[in-house]
């Protein structure tokens, strides 16, 4: 059992690299990423679990980092948008979002791309309906979603061709 007072230490795998940090006990994964590790791709959109802007992957599954105390990812694998491509290159989903004008203000984009990544890993050939369903926890006020859905369709096609 862990009894943690004032600050706790947590170690986990972040974008395939081990990381350790000491934070106040109830610090969320979102705050840990943004304020302690200074990875800013993950956005703070609501803190309520309602908008999906803070979505990251925990063990490959879309997770709301604003609602998850970082202490609970001890030993787990966390992927953020920073972790899906290296500097100067783009993941096929990033490429497709760029090509399809699927990011306008860009605030929901990180959550959208990571949610889509988890979807395509589970279901490489999703229908439009399945894509839209997978995105139903990720809100966007700018695009009207269609460019995002089209980008994901396109990325799925290209990822298959690339294999």
């Amino acid at each position, binding site marked *: 059992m862990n009894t943690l007072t004032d600050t706790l230490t947590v170690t986990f795998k972040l974008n395939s690299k081990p990381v350790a940090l000491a934070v106040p006990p109830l610090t969320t994964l979102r705050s840990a990423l943004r304020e302690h590790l200074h990875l800013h791709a993950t956005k703070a959109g*609501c803190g*309520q679990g*309602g*908008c999906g802007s803070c979505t990251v992957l925990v063990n490959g599954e879309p997770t709301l980092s604003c609602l998850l105390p970082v202490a609970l990812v001890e030993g787990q694998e966390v992927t953020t948008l920073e972790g899906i491509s290296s500097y100067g290159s783009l993941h096929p989903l990033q490429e497709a979002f760029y090509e399809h*004008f699927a990011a*306008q*203000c*860009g*605030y929901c984009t990180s959550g959208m791309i990571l949610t889509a990544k988890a979807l395509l890993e589970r279901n490489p050939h999703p229908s439009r*309906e399945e*894509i*839209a*369903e997978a*995105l*139903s*926890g*990720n*809100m*966007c*006020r*700018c*695009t*009207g*979603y*269609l*460019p*995002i*859905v089209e980008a994901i369709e396109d990325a799925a096609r290209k990822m298959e061709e690339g294999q």
Partner: protein
Amino acid sequence: MAKVRGRGIAAVNYPTGMNLGGDPSQALIFCQPTGNFSVKLASTDLGQGLKTAIAQIAAETLGASLDTIIVDTGDTDSAPHCMGTFASRGTHRIGNAVIMAAREARQALLDIAAEELEAVPEDLVAANGEIYVKGSPHRKISIPEVAGAAHFKYGRTISGRGIFLKPLSKVDPETGACDPDSTEAHATTVADVEVDTETGEVTVLRLASAYEVGQQVNPEMVNGQIIGGAVMGMAHALMESVFPYYPSLDHHPGSFSEYLIPTALDVPEIESVVLEYPSSNGPYGVKGVGEMTANSPIPAIVNAIYDAVGVWITDLPVTPEKVLRALEEKEAYGSAGSRRNQ
């Protein structure tokens, strides 16, 4: 069980620019020794793509290639005044200021190029990063070469200043006479809806619209405004209210599960066509498009509901409950109006 379909239309105008004017924006452009152009603005990109549109306008006017345009915006220490991004004014006002600045910079560029090419500036054309003599395209010089010569050979600047202002006008308090816009964009939307007469739910099946927005700077970005606006308009029509029992303050929503906006699964089929009738005073004939796109879907949807089930819901948003109550009232008292079953 009855699901009834209907179609409604709406045609709207939208004014470009801050009402009554008085809203200046400035731009400064300077050429770096390597031939890149820095466009200095204190303007804001809200996500609509202002930075991209401005880069395109600057490149067009300068005759430079797009990748040599550096739009540096958002710092009051390093850029002149901009009134702000609102009132469908951004591309119109800032674009005009950028054209003015870019023309001045281009003239400086052509003057130096003329000396290098032993020609007169009036005979020169700048396009795609090169300057050539009209009629003899082989007599040419690249913009980086001109920029280098300007700095290190002639000791001259290549820069430009631009401002756009529609002077402030007043409203005549007696007649209402005023000058409330620079130009007007227009839209017509056709909405197809399905009304569930048991639940009162309205599903928007399709929004088909024609927009006239003057010259488009970037058609894909215009399309982004169109789709995003259509979905926002649909949400205004059917879902959204800060006070669900307006004017009461009760049940004031505070979260995304109380104040609903559409999810990706709520988006109808959206089709559009864009007409371009360039305006007389916008940069390259631009009109503002960002705000208008959310407007025409709202009445088109309300009119489609009437077409489907013969009730006017004149109090937004059109909640299922309002539809159901109106249908019951109609059933109880009878009501004029057509009803079309499909």
